[in-house]
Protein backbone atom coordinates (compact mmCIF):
# COMPACT_ATOMS: atom_id res chain seq x y z
CA UNK A 1 0.00 0.00 0.00
CA UNK A 2 2.82 2.35 0.88
CA UNK A 3 4.45 2.10 -2.54
CA UNK A 4 3.55 5.40 -4.11
CA UNK A 5 3.59 5.33 -7.87
CA UNK A 6 3.02 8.13 -10.31
CA UNK A 7 -0.63 8.10 -11.31
CA UNK A 8 -0.94 5.64 -14.14
CA UNK A 9 -3.17 6.50 -17.02
CA UNK A 10 -6.86 5.67 -16.78
CA UNK A 11 -6.50 3.08 -19.49
CA UNK A 12 -3.67 1.32 -17.73
CA UNK A 13 -5.59 1.23 -14.51
CA UNK A 14 -8.65 -0.21 -16.17
CA UNK A 15 -6.54 -2.93 -17.74
CA UNK A 16 -5.03 -3.68 -14.32
CA UNK A 17 -8.50 -3.99 -12.76
CA UNK A 18 -9.62 -6.26 -15.58
CA UNK A 19 -6.61 -8.53 -15.11
CA UNK A 20 -7.19 -8.83 -11.38
CA UNK A 21 -10.86 -9.66 -11.86
CA UNK A 22 -9.90 -12.26 -14.47
CA UNK A 23 -7.45 -13.86 -12.02
CA UNK A 24 -10.00 -14.11 -9.25
CA UNK A 25 -12.83 -15.30 -11.50
CA UNK A 26 -12.14 -19.08 -11.68
CA UNK A 27 -12.16 -19.39 -7.88
CA UNK A 28 -15.15 -17.10 -7.60
CA UNK A 29 -17.02 -19.10 -10.23
CA UNK A 30 -16.47 -22.33 -8.28
CA UNK A 31 -17.74 -20.67 -5.10
CA UNK A 32 -20.76 -19.16 -6.84
CA UNK A 33 -21.73 -22.41 -8.57
CA UNK A 34 -21.09 -24.77 -5.68
CA UNK A 35 -22.06 -22.91 -2.56
CA UNK A 36 -23.90 -19.66 -3.35
CA UNK A 37 -26.20 -21.24 -5.94
CA UNK A 38 -26.93 -24.41 -3.86
CA UNK A 39 -27.70 -22.42 -0.72
CA UNK A 40 -29.82 -20.00 -2.75
CA UNK A 41 -31.61 -23.00 -4.21
CA UNK A 42 -32.38 -24.28 -0.73
CA UNK A 43 -33.78 -20.91 0.29
CA UNK A 44 -35.95 -20.79 -2.84
CA UNK A 45 -37.15 -24.36 -2.42
CA UNK A 46 -38.12 -23.65 1.17
CA UNK A 47 -40.65 -20.99 0.14
CA UNK A 48 -41.68 -22.08 -3.35
CA UNK A 49 -43.54 -25.21 -4.36
CA UNK A 50 -46.07 -24.60 -7.11
CA UNK A 51 -46.44 -21.06 -5.80
CA UNK A 52 -45.21 -19.26 -2.73
CA UNK A 53 -45.84 -20.95 0.56
CA UNK A 54 -44.73 -20.60 4.15
CA UNK A 55 -46.03 -24.06 4.96
CA UNK A 56 -42.52 -25.47 5.47
CA UNK A 57 -41.64 -22.79 7.99
CA UNK A 58 -44.98 -23.23 9.75
CA UNK A 59 -44.07 -26.88 10.21
CA UNK A 60 -40.57 -26.12 11.45
CA UNK A 61 -41.87 -23.68 14.03
CA UNK A 62 -44.96 -25.55 15.19
CA UNK A 63 -44.37 -29.28 14.82
CA UNK A 64 -43.01 -30.95 17.89
CA UNK A 65 -40.29 -33.03 16.24
CA UNK A 66 -38.66 -29.95 14.68
CA UNK A 67 -38.82 -27.92 17.86
CA UNK A 68 -37.37 -30.70 19.95
CA UNK A 69 -34.53 -31.21 17.51
CA UNK A 70 -33.63 -27.51 17.46
CA UNK A 71 -33.81 -27.31 21.25
CA UNK A 72 -31.66 -30.43 21.62
CA UNK A 73 -29.11 -29.10 19.14
CA UNK A 74 -28.79 -25.82 21.01
CA UNK A 75 -28.57 -27.63 24.35
CA UNK A 76 -25.84 -29.98 23.12
CA UNK A 77 -23.95 -27.10 21.51
CA UNK A 78 -24.12 -25.12 24.73
CA UNK A 79 -22.93 -28.08 26.81
CA UNK A 80 -20.11 -28.81 24.36
CA UNK A 81 -19.05 -25.14 24.41
CA UNK A 82 -19.01 -24.91 28.21
CA UNK A 83 -17.13 -28.20 28.61
CA UNK A 84 -14.63 -27.19 25.90
CA UNK A 85 -14.01 -23.91 27.68
CA UNK A 86 -13.53 -25.59 31.06
CA UNK A 87 -11.13 -28.14 29.58
CA UNK A 88 -9.44 -25.83 27.10
CA UNK A 89 -8.70 -22.84 29.33
CA UNK A 90 -6.27 -24.63 31.69
CA UNK A 91 -4.44 -26.20 28.74
CA UNK A 92 -4.09 -22.86 26.95
CA UNK A 93 -3.02 -21.22 30.22
CA UNK A 94 -0.37 -23.84 30.83
CA UNK A 95 0.91 -23.67 27.24
CA UNK A 96 1.24 -19.90 27.72
CA UNK A 97 3.01 -20.15 31.08
CA UNK A 98 5.64 -22.83 30.41
CA UNK A 99 8.92 -22.35 28.50
CA UNK A 100 8.79 -22.35 24.68
CA UNK A 101 9.79 -25.99 24.12
CA UNK A 102 7.04 -27.28 26.39
CA UNK A 103 4.42 -25.02 24.90
CA UNK A 104 5.23 -26.32 21.42
CA UNK A 105 4.79 -29.87 22.71
CA UNK A 106 1.44 -29.05 24.34
CA UNK A 107 0.14 -27.30 21.23
CA UNK A 108 1.33 -30.18 19.05
CA UNK A 109 -0.67 -32.59 21.20
CA UNK A 110 -3.70 -30.31 20.88
CA UNK A 111 -3.60 -30.11 17.08
CA UNK A 112 -2.60 -33.75 16.54
CA UNK A 113 -6.20 -35.05 16.64
CA UNK A 114 -7.15 -32.10 14.41
CA UNK A 115 -5.52 -33.90 11.51
CA UNK A 116 -7.19 -37.20 12.14
CA UNK A 117 -10.37 -37.71 10.16
CA UNK A 118 -13.60 -37.14 12.09
CA UNK A 119 -14.72 -40.56 10.89
CA UNK A 120 -11.61 -42.25 12.27
CA UNK A 121 -12.18 -40.59 15.62
CA UNK A 122 -15.84 -41.65 15.69
CA UNK A 123 -14.60 -45.20 15.19
CA UNK A 124 -12.06 -44.79 18.00
CA UNK A 125 -14.73 -43.55 20.40
CA UNK A 126 -16.97 -46.47 19.52
CA UNK A 127 -14.07 -48.81 20.27
CA UNK A 128 -13.45 -47.07 23.59
CA UNK A 129 -16.99 -46.52 24.83
CA UNK A 130 -19.22 -49.35 23.62
CA UNK A 131 -20.54 -52.07 25.95
CA UNK A 132 -17.66 -54.39 25.11
CA UNK A 133 -15.30 -51.46 24.65
CA UNK A 134 -11.99 -50.67 26.26
CA UNK A 135 -13.33 -48.48 29.08
CA UNK A 136 -16.04 -50.92 30.14
CA UNK A 137 -13.61 -53.86 30.03
CA UNK A 138 -11.14 -51.95 32.13
CA UNK A 139 -13.74 -50.92 34.71
CA UNK A 140 -15.04 -54.48 34.98
CA UNK A 141 -11.53 -55.85 35.27
CA UNK A 142 -10.90 -53.42 38.13
CA UNK A 143 -14.23 -54.48 39.68
CA UNK A 144 -15.52 -50.91 39.69
CA UNK A 145 -18.70 -51.99 37.92
CA UNK A 146 -20.48 -55.30 37.43
CA UNK A 147 -22.65 -54.36 34.47
CA UNK A 148 -21.28 -52.45 31.46
CA UNK A 149 -22.17 -48.77 31.44
CA UNK A 150 -24.08 -47.25 28.52
CA UNK A 151 -21.44 -44.76 27.43
CA UNK A 152 -22.28 -44.51 23.76
CA UNK A 153 -25.29 -44.58 21.41
CA UNK A 154 -26.70 -41.76 23.50
CA UNK A 155 -26.25 -38.04 24.14
CA UNK A 156 -23.35 -38.69 26.53
CA UNK A 157 -21.26 -40.41 23.85
CA UNK A 158 -22.11 -37.69 21.35
CA UNK A 159 -20.96 -34.93 23.71
CA UNK A 160 -17.70 -36.71 24.64
CA UNK A 161 -16.73 -37.24 21.00
CA UNK A 162 -17.87 -33.78 19.89
CA UNK A 163 -15.87 -32.00 22.58
CA UNK A 164 -12.88 -34.04 21.47
CA UNK A 165 -13.23 -32.79 17.91
CA UNK A 166 -13.91 -29.15 18.78
CA UNK A 167 -11.44 -28.64 21.65
CA UNK A 168 -8.59 -27.44 19.36
CA UNK A 169 -10.89 -24.67 18.08
CA UNK A 170 -11.14 -23.49 21.70
CA UNK A 171 -7.50 -23.86 22.77
CA UNK A 172 -5.92 -22.12 19.76
CA UNK A 173 -7.71 -18.73 19.99
CA UNK A 174 -7.35 -18.81 23.79
CA UNK A 175 -3.61 -19.38 23.48
CA UNK A 176 -3.25 -16.69 20.80
CA UNK A 177 -4.99 -14.15 23.06
CA UNK A 178 -3.05 -15.12 26.19
CA UNK A 179 0.22 -14.75 24.27
CA UNK A 180 -0.55 -11.07 23.79
CA UNK A 181 -1.11 -10.37 27.51
CA UNK A 182 2.09 -8.69 28.72
CA UNK A 183 3.77 -10.65 31.52
CA UNK A 184 4.75 -7.47 33.40
CA UNK A 185 1.07 -6.75 34.05
CA UNK A 186 0.94 -9.81 36.30
CA UNK A 187 4.19 -8.82 37.95
CA UNK A 188 2.83 -5.32 38.51
CA UNK A 189 -0.20 -6.82 40.21
CA UNK A 190 2.02 -8.99 42.41
CA UNK A 191 4.31 -6.08 43.30
CA UNK A 192 1.29 -4.09 44.41
CA UNK A 193 0.53 -6.82 46.88
CA UNK A 194 -2.17 -8.80 45.10
CA UNK A 195 -2.17 -12.56 45.55
CA UNK A 196 -1.61 -14.69 42.42
CA UNK A 197 -5.28 -15.70 42.37
CA UNK A 198 -6.40 -12.08 42.68
CA UNK A 199 -4.11 -10.93 39.83
CA UNK A 200 -5.48 -13.81 37.77
CA UNK A 201 -9.11 -12.88 38.38
CA UNK A 202 -8.66 -9.11 38.12
CA UNK A 203 -6.00 -8.83 35.41
CA UNK A 204 -5.42 -12.00 33.39
CA UNK A 205 -8.96 -13.34 33.10
CA UNK A 206 -10.54 -10.09 31.78
CA UNK A 207 -7.73 -9.66 29.24
CA UNK A 208 -8.25 -13.20 27.96
CA UNK A 209 -11.99 -12.68 27.39
CA UNK A 210 -11.70 -11.87 23.65
CA UNK A 211 -10.08 -15.28 23.19
CA UNK A 212 -12.85 -16.89 25.23
CA UNK A 213 -15.46 -15.26 23.01
CA UNK A 214 -13.66 -16.25 19.79
CA UNK A 215 -13.23 -19.85 20.92
CA UNK A 216 -16.77 -20.22 22.24
CA UNK A 217 -18.24 -18.79 19.03
CA UNK A 218 -16.30 -21.17 16.81
CA UNK A 219 -17.10 -24.23 18.93
CA UNK A 220 -20.79 -23.36 19.28
CA UNK A 221 -21.31 -22.62 15.60
CA UNK A 222 -19.43 -25.70 14.40
CA UNK A 223 -21.37 -27.86 16.84
CA UNK A 224 -24.73 -26.55 15.57
CA UNK A 225 -24.06 -28.16 12.19
CA UNK A 226 -22.40 -31.37 13.40
CA UNK A 227 -23.51 -34.46 11.54
CA UNK A 228 -21.15 -37.44 11.51
CA UNK A 229 -20.54 -37.70 15.24
CA UNK A 230 -24.19 -37.56 16.42
CA UNK A 231 -25.22 -39.87 13.58
CA UNK A 232 -22.69 -42.54 14.49
CA UNK A 233 -22.50 -42.11 18.28
CA UNK A 234 -25.99 -40.84 19.11
CA UNK A 235 -27.66 -44.19 18.60
CA UNK A 236 -30.57 -42.75 16.61
CA UNK A 237 -32.07 -41.06 19.65
CA UNK A 238 -29.99 -37.90 19.57
CA UNK A 239 -31.55 -36.29 16.50
CA UNK A 240 -29.67 -33.06 15.89
CA UNK A 241 -30.79 -30.53 13.28
CA UNK A 242 -28.28 -31.75 10.72
CA UNK A 243 -29.76 -35.25 10.97
CA UNK A 244 -33.24 -33.82 10.55
CA UNK A 245 -32.09 -32.26 7.29
CA UNK A 246 -30.51 -35.46 6.03
CA UNK A 247 -33.46 -37.68 7.01
CA UNK A 248 -35.92 -35.36 5.35
CA UNK A 249 -33.90 -35.68 2.15
CA UNK A 250 -32.86 -39.32 2.21
CA UNK A 251 -35.75 -41.08 3.91
CA UNK A 252 -38.84 -38.96 3.47
CA UNK A 253 -38.17 -36.96 0.28
CA UNK A 254 -39.41 -33.89 2.12
CA UNK A 255 -37.22 -31.47 0.18
CA UNK A 256 -39.15 -28.36 1.17
CA UNK A 257 -39.04 -29.17 4.87
CA UNK A 258 -35.34 -30.10 4.68
CA UNK A 259 -34.63 -26.77 2.98
CA UNK A 260 -36.55 -24.78 5.58
CA UNK A 261 -34.66 -26.49 8.42
CA UNK A 262 -31.36 -25.80 6.63
CA UNK A 263 -32.27 -22.14 6.14
CA UNK A 264 -33.21 -21.69 9.81
CA UNK A 265 -29.93 -23.34 10.84
CA UNK A 266 -27.92 -21.13 8.48
CA UNK A 267 -29.68 -17.97 9.70
CA UNK A 268 -28.92 -18.96 13.31
CA UNK A 269 -25.23 -19.33 12.44
CA UNK A 270 -25.12 -16.02 10.58
CA UNK A 271 -26.96 -14.25 13.41
CA UNK A 272 -24.40 -15.53 15.92
CA UNK A 273 -21.50 -14.37 13.74
CA UNK A 274 -23.19 -10.99 13.32
CA UNK A 275 -23.70 -10.47 17.06
CA UNK A 276 -20.17 -11.60 17.87
CA UNK A 277 -18.69 -9.31 15.21
CA UNK A 278 -20.00 -6.33 17.21
CA UNK A 279 -17.55 -7.27 19.97
CA UNK A 280 -14.51 -8.77 18.29
CA UNK A 281 -13.12 -8.90 14.77
CA UNK A 282 -14.38 -11.94 12.87
CA UNK A 283 -10.85 -12.58 11.59
CA UNK A 284 -10.10 -13.56 15.13
CA UNK A 285 -12.84 -16.18 15.10
CA UNK A 286 -12.14 -17.55 11.64
CA UNK A 287 -8.39 -17.12 11.94
CA UNK A 288 -7.76 -20.74 12.77
CA UNK A 289 -7.82 -23.58 10.36
Amino acid sequence: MATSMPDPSQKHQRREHGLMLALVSPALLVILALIVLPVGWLAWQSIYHDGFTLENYRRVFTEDIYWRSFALTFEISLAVTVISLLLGYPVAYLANAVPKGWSILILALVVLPFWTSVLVRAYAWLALLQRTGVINQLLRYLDVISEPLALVHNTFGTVIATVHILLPFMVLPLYATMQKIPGDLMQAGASLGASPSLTFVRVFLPLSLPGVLAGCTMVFVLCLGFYITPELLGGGRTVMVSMLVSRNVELYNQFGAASAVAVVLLLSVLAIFFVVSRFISLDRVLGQK
Partner: protein
Amino acid sequence: MMRASPARIALYAISALVLVYLILPVLIIAPISFSSARFLTFPPPSFSLRWYQQYFANPAWMQATRVTLTVAFLTVLIATPCGVAAAYAISQSKLRIMRIIHMALLLPLVVPIIITAVGIFFVYAKVGLVATLPGLVLANVMLGLPYVVISVLAGLQSFDPAQEMVARSLGMNRLRSFFAVTLPQVKSSVVAGGIFAFISAMDETIVALFISGGQYQPLTKRMFTALRDEIDPTIAAISTLMTAASFMLVLLASARQKRAG
Protein backbone atom coordinates in the same frame (compact mmCIF):
# COMPACT_ATOMS: atom_id res chain seq x y z
CA MET B 1 7.32 -18.03 39.31
CA MET B 2 6.53 -21.76 39.25
CA ARG B 3 5.83 -22.57 42.87
CA ALA B 4 4.12 -25.84 43.71
CA SER B 5 0.95 -24.22 45.03
CA PRO B 6 -2.24 -26.33 45.05
CA ALA B 7 -3.53 -24.24 42.15
CA ARG B 8 -0.41 -25.09 40.13
CA ILE B 9 -0.71 -28.78 40.85
CA ALA B 10 -4.38 -28.71 39.85
CA LEU B 11 -3.47 -26.88 36.63
CA TYR B 12 -0.88 -29.49 35.70
CA ALA B 13 -3.17 -32.39 36.60
CA ILE B 14 -6.16 -31.08 34.64
CA SER B 15 -4.04 -30.22 31.62
CA ALA B 16 -2.41 -33.65 31.63
CA LEU B 17 -5.80 -35.36 31.77
CA VAL B 18 -7.15 -33.22 28.94
CA LEU B 19 -4.11 -34.01 26.80
CA VAL B 20 -4.57 -37.73 27.45
CA TYR B 21 -8.24 -37.38 26.45
CA LEU B 22 -7.14 -35.68 23.22
CA ILE B 23 -4.51 -38.24 22.29
CA LEU B 24 -6.04 -41.51 23.49
CA PRO B 25 -8.51 -42.04 20.60
CA VAL B 26 -5.78 -41.37 18.07
CA LEU B 27 -3.49 -43.91 19.73
CA ILE B 28 -6.08 -46.62 20.30
CA ILE B 29 -6.76 -47.37 16.63
CA ALA B 30 -3.40 -48.76 15.58
CA PRO B 31 -3.29 -51.54 18.25
CA ILE B 32 -6.84 -52.60 17.32
CA SER B 33 -5.88 -52.78 13.66
CA PHE B 34 -2.98 -55.14 14.42
CA SER B 35 -5.06 -57.40 16.65
CA SER B 36 -6.19 -60.87 15.65
CA ALA B 37 -9.49 -60.61 17.52
CA ARG B 38 -12.76 -60.31 15.64
CA PHE B 39 -14.27 -58.30 18.45
CA LEU B 40 -12.59 -55.45 20.18
CA THR B 41 -10.50 -56.59 23.06
CA PHE B 42 -7.81 -54.64 24.73
CA PRO B 43 -5.00 -55.44 25.10
CA PRO B 44 -5.11 -57.33 21.78
CA PRO B 45 -4.68 -61.12 22.17
CA SER B 46 -2.08 -61.51 19.45
CA PHE B 47 -0.48 -59.64 16.61
CA SER B 48 -2.00 -60.10 13.16
CA LEU B 49 -2.19 -58.44 9.78
CA ARG B 50 -5.51 -60.02 8.84
CA TRP B 51 -7.47 -56.74 8.79
CA TYR B 52 -4.93 -55.20 6.45
CA GLN B 53 -5.19 -58.30 4.25
CA GLN B 54 -8.98 -58.01 4.24
CA TYR B 55 -8.69 -54.39 3.19
CA PHE B 56 -6.23 -54.98 0.37
CA ALA B 57 -8.02 -58.11 -0.86
CA ASN B 58 -11.45 -56.48 -1.04
CA PRO B 59 -12.24 -55.04 -4.50
CA ALA B 60 -14.88 -52.65 -3.11
CA TRP B 61 -12.43 -51.11 -0.64
CA MET B 62 -9.76 -50.91 -3.34
CA GLN B 63 -12.13 -49.20 -5.78
CA ALA B 64 -13.11 -46.72 -3.04
CA THR B 65 -9.43 -46.05 -2.33
CA ARG B 66 -8.80 -45.35 -6.02
CA VAL B 67 -11.73 -42.91 -6.08
CA THR B 68 -10.46 -41.11 -2.96
CA LEU B 69 -6.93 -40.73 -4.33
CA THR B 70 -8.12 -39.66 -7.78
CA VAL B 71 -10.48 -37.08 -6.31
CA ALA B 72 -7.84 -35.74 -3.92
CA PHE B 73 -5.20 -35.37 -6.63
CA LEU B 74 -7.56 -33.73 -9.12
CA THR B 75 -8.82 -31.43 -6.37
CA VAL B 76 -5.30 -30.23 -5.66
CA LEU B 77 -4.54 -29.81 -9.37
CA ILE B 78 -7.57 -27.55 -9.83
CA ALA B 79 -7.88 -25.81 -6.46
CA THR B 80 -4.21 -24.80 -6.18
CA PRO B 81 -3.89 -22.67 -9.35
CA CYS B 82 -7.37 -21.16 -8.84
CA GLY B 83 -6.56 -20.35 -5.22
CA VAL B 84 -3.13 -18.89 -6.00
CA ALA B 85 -4.52 -16.66 -8.77
CA ALA B 86 -7.31 -15.47 -6.48
CA ALA B 87 -4.99 -14.83 -3.53
CA TYR B 88 -2.60 -12.89 -5.77
CA ALA B 89 -5.41 -10.72 -7.13
CA ILE B 90 -6.86 -10.12 -3.66
CA SER B 91 -3.50 -9.04 -2.25
CA GLN B 92 -2.46 -6.84 -5.20
CA SER B 93 -5.69 -5.23 -6.33
CA LYS B 94 -7.01 -2.05 -4.77
CA LEU B 95 -10.53 -2.70 -6.07
CA ARG B 96 -13.04 -2.40 -3.26
CA ILE B 97 -15.02 -5.41 -4.46
CA MET B 98 -12.01 -7.62 -3.64
CA ARG B 99 -12.89 -7.47 0.06
CA ILE B 100 -16.28 -8.97 -0.68
CA ILE B 101 -14.74 -11.56 -3.01
CA HIS B 102 -12.23 -12.48 -0.31
CA MET B 103 -15.07 -13.11 2.13
CA ALA B 104 -17.01 -15.09 -0.48
CA LEU B 105 -14.02 -17.39 -0.96
CA LEU B 106 -14.08 -18.21 2.76
CA LEU B 107 -17.79 -19.13 2.69
CA PRO B 108 -17.12 -22.90 2.67
CA LEU B 109 -15.68 -22.50 6.19
CA VAL B 110 -18.69 -20.55 7.45
CA VAL B 111 -21.69 -22.39 6.03
CA PRO B 112 -22.41 -25.61 7.97
CA ILE B 113 -21.24 -28.43 5.75
CA ILE B 114 -24.53 -30.32 5.98
CA ILE B 115 -26.29 -27.35 4.36
CA THR B 116 -23.71 -27.13 1.59
CA ALA B 117 -24.04 -30.87 1.04
CA VAL B 118 -27.82 -30.88 0.68
CA GLY B 119 -27.73 -27.78 -1.54
CA ILE B 120 -25.14 -29.33 -3.86
CA PHE B 121 -27.20 -32.52 -3.97
CA PHE B 122 -30.26 -30.61 -5.21
CA VAL B 123 -28.24 -28.71 -7.84
CA TYR B 124 -26.43 -31.85 -9.00
CA ALA B 125 -29.71 -33.74 -9.26
CA LYS B 126 -30.91 -31.11 -11.76
CA VAL B 127 -27.78 -31.17 -13.92
CA GLY B 128 -27.02 -34.89 -13.69
CA LEU B 129 -23.79 -34.71 -11.67
CA VAL B 130 -24.91 -37.03 -8.85
CA ALA B 131 -22.74 -40.16 -8.56
CA THR B 132 -20.14 -38.89 -11.03
CA LEU B 133 -16.42 -38.29 -10.64
CA PRO B 134 -16.49 -34.68 -11.96
CA GLY B 135 -19.25 -33.85 -9.48
CA LEU B 136 -17.22 -35.17 -6.58
CA VAL B 137 -14.07 -33.34 -7.71
CA LEU B 138 -15.85 -30.01 -8.21
CA ALA B 139 -17.40 -30.12 -4.74
CA ASN B 140 -14.00 -30.86 -3.20
CA VAL B 141 -12.36 -28.04 -5.16
CA MET B 142 -14.88 -25.67 -3.61
CA LEU B 143 -14.21 -27.05 -0.11
CA GLY B 144 -10.43 -26.94 -0.58
CA LEU B 145 -10.18 -23.42 -2.04
CA PRO B 146 -10.26 -21.55 1.31
CA TYR B 147 -7.21 -23.47 2.54
CA VAL B 148 -5.17 -22.50 -0.53
CA VAL B 149 -6.36 -18.87 -0.42
CA ILE B 150 -5.64 -18.46 3.32
CA SER B 151 -2.23 -20.07 3.09
CA VAL B 152 -1.09 -18.14 -0.01
CA LEU B 153 -2.47 -14.82 1.28
CA ALA B 154 -0.42 -15.30 4.46
CA GLY B 155 2.64 -15.98 2.31
CA LEU B 156 2.04 -12.92 0.14
CA GLN B 157 1.70 -10.69 3.21
CA SER B 158 5.46 -10.68 3.70
CA PHE B 159 6.12 -10.25 -0.02
CA ASP B 160 6.97 -6.79 -1.29
CA PRO B 161 5.14 -6.11 -4.57
CA ALA B 162 7.81 -3.57 -5.49
CA GLN B 163 10.07 -6.50 -6.37
CA GLU B 164 7.74 -7.50 -9.14
CA MET B 165 7.67 -3.89 -10.35
CA VAL B 166 11.45 -4.00 -10.60
CA ALA B 167 11.37 -7.17 -12.66
CA ARG B 168 8.81 -5.61 -14.97
CA SER B 169 10.75 -2.39 -15.31
CA LEU B 170 13.68 -4.56 -16.39
CA GLY B 171 11.59 -5.80 -19.28
CA MET B 172 9.89 -8.95 -18.03
CA ASN B 173 6.20 -9.24 -18.78
CA ARG B 174 3.67 -9.64 -16.01
CA LEU B 175 3.38 -13.41 -16.28
CA ARG B 176 7.13 -14.02 -16.38
CA SER B 177 7.81 -11.69 -13.50
CA PHE B 178 5.16 -13.52 -11.46
CA PHE B 179 6.72 -16.91 -12.12
CA ALA B 180 10.31 -15.68 -11.79
CA VAL B 181 10.02 -13.35 -8.80
CA THR B 182 6.78 -13.76 -6.87
CA LEU B 183 5.99 -17.47 -7.02
CA PRO B 184 9.39 -18.73 -5.77
CA GLN B 185 9.01 -16.60 -2.66
CA VAL B 186 5.57 -17.96 -1.76
CA LYS B 187 6.23 -21.50 -3.00
CA SER B 188 6.10 -22.94 0.51
CA SER B 189 2.70 -21.40 1.20
CA VAL B 190 1.42 -22.72 -2.11
CA VAL B 191 2.61 -26.24 -1.34
CA ALA B 192 1.19 -26.08 2.19
CA GLY B 193 -2.17 -24.85 0.86
CA GLY B 194 -2.22 -27.65 -1.71
CA ILE B 195 -1.47 -30.26 0.95
CA PHE B 196 -4.30 -28.96 3.14
CA ALA B 197 -6.65 -29.12 0.15
CA PHE B 198 -5.53 -32.73 -0.40
CA ILE B 199 -6.20 -33.71 3.22
CA SER B 200 -9.54 -31.91 3.12
CA ALA B 201 -10.55 -33.92 0.02
CA MET B 202 -9.26 -37.17 1.52
CA ASP B 203 -11.25 -36.70 4.75
CA GLU B 204 -14.40 -35.19 3.25
CA THR B 205 -17.41 -37.32 4.16
CA ILE B 206 -20.66 -35.40 4.39
CA VAL B 207 -20.91 -34.04 0.85
CA ALA B 208 -19.84 -37.46 -0.46
CA LEU B 209 -22.66 -39.10 1.51
CA PHE B 210 -25.19 -37.12 -0.49
CA ILE B 211 -23.69 -36.84 -3.95
CA SER B 212 -21.56 -39.93 -4.47
CA GLY B 213 -22.79 -43.34 -5.48
CA GLY B 214 -22.30 -46.37 -7.67
CA GLN B 215 -18.67 -47.01 -8.50
CA TYR B 216 -17.64 -43.49 -7.56
CA GLN B 217 -17.92 -43.77 -3.78
CA PRO B 218 -14.91 -42.53 -1.86
CA LEU B 219 -13.39 -44.41 1.06
CA THR B 220 -15.07 -42.19 3.65
CA LYS B 221 -18.56 -42.95 2.37
CA ARG B 222 -17.96 -46.70 2.53
CA MET B 223 -16.43 -46.34 5.99
CA PHE B 224 -19.44 -44.37 7.20
CA THR B 225 -21.87 -46.98 5.91
CA ALA B 226 -19.80 -49.78 7.40
CA LEU B 227 -19.62 -48.02 10.78
CA ARG B 228 -23.38 -47.60 10.85
CA ASP B 229 -23.95 -51.32 10.35
CA GLU B 230 -21.34 -53.08 12.45
CA ILE B 231 -17.91 -52.53 13.85
CA ASP B 232 -15.45 -54.30 11.62
CA PRO B 233 -11.74 -54.04 12.51
CA THR B 234 -11.01 -53.59 8.80
CA ILE B 235 -12.04 -49.99 9.47
CA ALA B 236 -9.27 -49.77 12.07
CA ALA B 237 -6.73 -50.84 9.47
CA ILE B 238 -8.01 -48.25 6.98
CA SER B 239 -8.14 -45.60 9.71
CA THR B 240 -4.55 -46.31 10.69
CA LEU B 241 -3.40 -45.94 7.08
CA MET B 242 -5.41 -42.73 6.60
CA THR B 243 -4.10 -41.22 9.82
CA ALA B 244 -0.53 -42.08 8.89
CA ALA B 245 -1.01 -40.46 5.48
CA SER B 246 -2.52 -37.31 7.04
CA PHE B 247 0.27 -36.95 9.57
CA MET B 248 2.99 -37.35 6.97
CA LEU B 249 1.35 -34.72 4.79
CA VAL B 250 0.95 -32.30 7.71
CA LEU B 251 4.59 -32.74 8.71
CA LEU B 252 5.54 -32.05 5.11
CA ALA B 253 3.36 -28.94 5.02
CA SER B 254 4.60 -27.55 8.32
CA ALA B 255 8.24 -28.19 7.37
CA ARG B 256 7.49 -26.19 4.23
CA GLN B 257 5.85 -23.38 6.15
CA LYS B 258 8.69 -23.18 8.64
CA ARG B 259 11.18 -22.75 5.84
CA ALA B 260 9.05 -19.91 4.55
CA GLY B 261 9.59 -18.23 7.93
